[in-house]
């Protein structure tokens, strides 16, 4: 097959994956709405439930926990008393399962598209912004697919698949670049290592930020219970969400540290200096320092978990800036501007 046919095939796989992701998103929405209690039933028991929920939230944050609590957290089930949900409804479980299956399929198509494109250009397929964005969301899809079933993260699906779709939409409209070769400075296996690990880190940060945002919502409801409990109350407890977000961000942070090191080894080969504060390096450092601050804040006595989460989300904002503005906007011109835009 010629590179052109391969590149076309890659594009078709990409469009197909967008279609399937859209279906997955709809299934996840159906799943979430089926999770919510029926209104009448909810209204009847809202007050007492809310009181219990608040009490349990506080206990789970600092009080005693037994093995059952932990098992429940792992299973992603709601904390006891979060509005007497009982077991998840069959309909909700079915939709969740459909959403997950569709996500696997869409992720597979997307990964296939990235691989085909790599074959078409005979190099790692992340030499420009279009390829970079596609590969990054493919990594997010893979990370979510791997972790979702085990952790019963169907409820997280909407928050993952929607951003993936947005990025893919941007990629095919604004960022699209034809398949082509790399600039000489980009031909290095350190680049492959550096970028691969960066993708992994970013995918974990993305999951961490999504769970973190859900945590903030959940926690607000625990502190100030709503008169009409809904989807949010059906999610895992705020304390469990916070721990999950921490684990994800922690994994992301380790990988980011490695990204930073591999990047400077590459910079040394390509430019002769391992660190010279070019804008991309500045932002890599900023992300690293903000997440380090998050780690610290979480270990500092007297810092509220909510504040720590804001720091983590600020770190994620820096991740987004790093992959968008720093590549595209001319004020950030440095040595990294190979994006082909």
């Amino acid at each position, binding site marked *: 097959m010629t590179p052109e046919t391969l590149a076309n095939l890659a594009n078709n796989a990409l469009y197909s994956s967008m279609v399937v992701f859209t279906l997955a998103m709809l299934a996840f929405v159906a799943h979430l709405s089926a999770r919510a209690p029926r209104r009448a039933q909810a209204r009847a028991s809202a007050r007492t439930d809310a009181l219990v929920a608040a009490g349990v939230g506080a206990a789970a944050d600092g009080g*005693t*926990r037994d*093995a059952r609590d*932990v098992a429940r*957290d*792992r299973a992603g089930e709601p904390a006891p008393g979060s509005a007497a949900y009982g077991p998840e409804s069959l309909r909700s479980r079915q939709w969740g399962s459909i959403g997950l299956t569709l996500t696997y399929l869409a992720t597979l198509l997307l990964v296939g598209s990235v691989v085909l494109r790599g074959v078409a250009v005979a190099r790692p397929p992340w030499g420009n912004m279009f390829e970079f964005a596609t590969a990054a969301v493919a990594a997010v899809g893979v990370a979510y697919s791997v972790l979702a079933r085990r952790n019963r993260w169907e409820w997280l699906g909407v928050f993952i698949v929607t951003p993936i779709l947005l990025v893919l939409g941007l990629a095919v409209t604004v960022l699209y*670049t*034809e398949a*082509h*070769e790399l*600039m*000489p*400075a980009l*031909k*290095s296996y*350190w680049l492959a290592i550096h970028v691969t690990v960066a993708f992994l880190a970013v995918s974990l940060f993305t999951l961490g930020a999504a769970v973190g945002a859900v945590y903030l919502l959940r926690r607000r409801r625990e502190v100030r219970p709503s008169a009409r409990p809904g989807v949010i109350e059906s999610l895992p407890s705020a304390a469990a969400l916070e*721990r999950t977000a921490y684990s994800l961000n*922690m994994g992301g*942070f*380790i990988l980011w*540290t490695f990204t930073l*090191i591999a990047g*400077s*080894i590459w910079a*040394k*080969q*390509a*430019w*002769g*200096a*391992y*660190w*010279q*504060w*070019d*804008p991309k390096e*500045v*932002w890599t*450092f*900023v992300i690293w*320092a*903000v997440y*380090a*601050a998050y*780690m*610290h*804040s979480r*270990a*500092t*006595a007297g*810092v509220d978990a909510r504040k720590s989460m804001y*720091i983590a989300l600020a770190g994620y904002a*820096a991740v987004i800036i790093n992959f968008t503005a*720093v590549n595209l906007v001319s*004020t*950030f*011109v*440095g*040595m990294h501007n190979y994006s*082909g835009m």
Partner: protein
Amino acid sequence: MTSTDTRTPRRTTPEPQPPDLGVLGMLRWAWRQLTSMRTALFLLLLISVAAVPGSIFPQRNIDPGRVADYLTRHQSSGPWLDRLGFFDVFSSPWFSAIYLLLFISLIGCIVPRAKVHLKALRSRPPRAPARPERLEHHASLTTSAAPEQVLATAREVLASRRFRVHSHDAASVSAESGYLRETGNLVFHVALTGIIVGMAVGHLFGWRGDVIVPEGQKFASSISTYNTFSPGPWVNPARIPSFVLTVDKMQADFIQTPGKTFGQPRDFIAHTTVQARPGAAAVPEQISVNHPLSIDGADVFLLGNGYTPVITVRDAQGEVLYHDATPFLPQDQTYRSVGVVKVSALPAPKQLGLTGFFLPTAEPTFANGPASVFPDALDPELALSVWEGTLFPGGMPQSVYTLNTEAMKQVTKPDGSPVLVRLKPGQTYELPGDRGSVTFDSVKRFAGLSVRHDPGELIALVSAILTTAGLILALTLKRRRVFVRVRQADDPDGRAATVVSIGGLSKDSDAGLTAVIQAVHDRLAERTTAT
């Protein structure tokens, strides 16, 4: 307390006074503040905010040209930003202050924690609580096995899971694991200081020299032969290596197929011959992007390339005044390049200066000024304006790539329009007014080489690897304590039984601890009832 009372209240108690700490006390207090976790947190956030301007404003260390450009475009705000260090963010006093504080705080943090940890490493797990079942993670069982047997099994199970085990009394076992977590944390923080030390060593003892070498020319390394040489403050000039390098051929390939990437570079390779020192054996070497050449403690990087048109200037009698391969610096992706020829062989007010463009594939009409349509030398052309006067007014040194026209006048044709010399290779232009001629003989490429030596690099690299290793230990391991306590009781049938209570404690949320407790429980249940 917004109302003002007209009556003076009687003072019953003296106003609260800050405790009198004295100078030493104040220092101690300041030190404790500086080395607290909160301060570290604050400084980390501060340094990340402080780094951002370094990516928004052009920086002198990366591109001084853009800084100068910014300053001319922002006449009012520019100088203020400059004074505040926004064009040298990473060497500005405020940025340095933050990272120095962070560095001090880091050391102030490591030392006491290392002491505490060393002690902990030599200590025993603490005494088991009276009721382990009240701990966060717990399990219990009743068994017919004897207490000693239960405790022995518990000890065995915990030891096999790399717990440090100790019995403070006959009815309990205490176990602790995850000492490596704190070790990893300390390694991480110590290695961070290592990175900073490595960077400092590189700054103090490192040097960098940049040079442009046209094809066919020889470059002998020494402080004075580089175009620019930037040594760190403590560099010993005698230690600069004295290798000799000849650029035989500078190979540059560009994408020729039409499309969005038309004209983008594909490969750059400098084919060179290198002698480790003058007179040593000549060895062929290739230098390309991502593949520097290491020689005598220094690394030679290929950081740029471009064209050196060979230009000859003759006087009216045909005498050669200037003949050289003159580097023109590329300005954009199409290698439209600017350069200067300074004909200083003539007496002062009659000196000639030529300045203008080299276009590797010239766009013929010049409709939008001189432009190149492709970076390869497919149809090269020179376009130069000519100046006459004094090249070096006041004998001031100046860049070889710019012409100081302060004391010069542009040469015009008899009709008063300025002279524009346009030449293809092999062509000659006769200057008006008996000023002689300019010939474009041929064109060669040049290699832009950067030679660097950074003795701090290895320190930084090793520290960076240790940082990652320490981080992985610190973040993935858990500090856990497990206690087992036995109590004798009678079971409902009146037979002797042992009630075993297992409890676990972890510093952070730790779902894995439940699994450990469960495992201890299961092993006790299976072993001790089996007998």
